[in-house]
């Protein structure tokens, strides 16, 4: 199975794991879930849209990362998934 991972569980960061899937599936667990859950899902979704990815499984464990951190972690995880399995 193709898997990629980026980030960490330290404060102001997020650990993002992506793996192959036949649909888009986004799972978010955040320390600020009550306030920003939907926004984090939105950031992930729009990043995937921009990268023209329409089938992937994303798990995001967020420790209060800013939007562009999440975006960078997600793109790195996807890149690692592709590179490692080329």
């Amino acid at each position, binding site marked *: 199975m193709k898997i990629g991972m980026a980030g960490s569980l*330290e404060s102001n960061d997020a650990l993002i794991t992506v793996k192959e899937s036949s649909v888009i599936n986004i799972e978010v667990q955040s320390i600020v879930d009550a306030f920003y859950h939907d926004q984090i899902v939105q950031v992930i979704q729009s990043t995937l849209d921009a990268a023209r990815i329409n089938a992937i499984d994303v798990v995001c464990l967020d420790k209060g990362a800013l939007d562009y951190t999440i975006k960078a972690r997600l793109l790195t995880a996807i890149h690692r998934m592709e590179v490692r399995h080329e």
Partner: protein
Amino acid sequence: MIKQALLAEEKEQIRLFLLSNDLGFDFHDDAYFIEEDEKIIATLSLDGHIIKGLAIDVHYRGMNIAGELLSHAIAILSNRNLYSYHVFTKSIYVDLFTSMGFRLLADSGKVAFMEGGVDKIEDVILGYQKRIENTFGIKIKDNDLGTIVVNCNPMTLGHYQLIEASAAKHDFLIVFVVETDESTFTYKERFSLVYLALKPLNNVLVLPSTNYIVSKSTFPSYFLKALDEREYEHAKLDALIFKKYFMPLLNLSMRHVGTESEPVMVAYNQILKDTLGEKLQEIPRFSQNGVVISASLVRRFMYEHRIEEALSFVPHSIRPLLKAIMEEKNVRTKP
């Protein structure tokens, strides 16, 4: 900065630190630690895919040091291509791991077993559900399924009769063979022998036990000091996982066990009984000419190079294969 304990004296320091936190330590594990003023303030260990031995000095809590250590551990595991992990921890740390995205599978009240990463126990079991349904061409919800978990080190006539008797009580019987390689016979040898011996039984399916049933790798021996207490807590987690996940998801109505004479196994059976209640049934062991058949008896004959006698206690169908395996083992163990 996180360091890996490489020197014996570093490991000894970690052992003492864990001891002061009421935890044990296994010197074979990869241990990581953080120091402050040359004093250990936090540690975490890895044993294969298992994360354990997490402890933070009481003066340094609330600073997300656990997050730092766990991130480090997860990075190391992903470098080893391991994306699914198990955690053994004291029950009091369950919330901490939950906040790190780990899922609680069982909590004995003293120790807890959690999983994180890609694989989920439900997916593993649902995979089995499909396999059972495809093998027998059935829907599990419409049938009565029984189960038995065996190590079979090696398969004997006693095991065969126990499984045959259990299979007769159900529409179908699922036999789980313990995957952990801690026995005289390897998992592959044991599984092959069980598979071969049970081939004539049409309503029996033999499956690997997964990491979730009687897996020694998931029952580390570090977190409670007294051996008996530790074994007890491990067995309890094992029984709880079986009850909470395997029995309902696979629609298993009954788990069968043979009566045991060894103290540890007697205790394990008792814990299963306490946990599963009426869904556990003990079946008396079988004897042959007044001798109770056991795998230990077969192994003893093998070590004494009395292979023909050893083989008299195992099913006919596996004698040629077992003979070959035994002869190979005896050659290897000769001085």
